[in-house]
């Protein structure tokens, strides 16, 4: 890895780690189901950026783009499924609060 790409990698890597921290914090602290899904989305965004960065540094941008497109499609399916589940929970309990989901313990 030459100096130029190392600089690119370290700059982007720094912010990717911060983005991971945002998403992880959101996931850990939140009590709202929609916000939990937003946390997951933020994490996947960070991963997307990481893979594109890897493609740029290794000179395989086309491969990285192909992978990212697949990731995005899968991400949409996951988000839609999660939103559907959250909606049904809302219909049952009239709230999106995770604390209302305490029927299973342990």
């Amino acid at each position: 890895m030459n100096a130029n790409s190392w600089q690119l990698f370290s700059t982007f890597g720094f912010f990717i780690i911060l983005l991971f921290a945002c998403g992880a914090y959101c996931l850990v602290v939140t009590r709202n189901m929609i916000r939990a899904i937003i946390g997951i989305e933020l994490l996947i965004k960070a991963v997307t950026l990481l893979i594109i960065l890897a493609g740029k540094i290794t000179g395989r941008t086309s491969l990285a783009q192909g992978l990212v497109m697949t990731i995005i499609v899968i991400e949409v399916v996951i988000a839609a499924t999660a939103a559907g589940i959250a909606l049904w929970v809302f219909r049952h309990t009239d709230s999106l609060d995770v604390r209302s989901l305490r029927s299973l313990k342990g």
Partner: protein
Amino acid sequence: MNINLTFLILTIIAALWSVMGRSLLKATIGLAATSALISILIFRLDSPLAAVFELSVCTGLITAVFVSTISLTKPLTHKEILQASKDRFKRYWYLPVILVVIGIALVLLKVRQDFIMAPVPALQQDVRDVLWNFRRLDILGQVIILLAGALGVVILFEENKRNER
């Protein structure tokens, strides 16, 4: 490089906004902004097609999914919002602090550059070429997962006939 840096900082600010935003709608808009900024960054990393895809699908479609979900759930009353935001502030103000701490730790840590890359020749290929000729299995996988998603939408969004509860 400075342009990249600006956009990266803006991305983090948008992500912070989406995590700490008071209402769900603001959080969703924050997510959309993060996604848009990331698509600019992807574009600047020589990946225009993925950038367009990210912009249209993540910024557009996923935001639409979230907004429709939020609109189908019950909005909080004004009083509840005030209470919730007070409650939230207690839990969320740690995040900027944590980010700063992580940032300082990373700068101090100074990851050594001992990373050896396998010598791969840079390939100038077209994305469509790669996607259709080398990653066709992934395309098949996308078709299957969309099928599963469609079945899921049928299951999750249909009304229950018995209408329990």
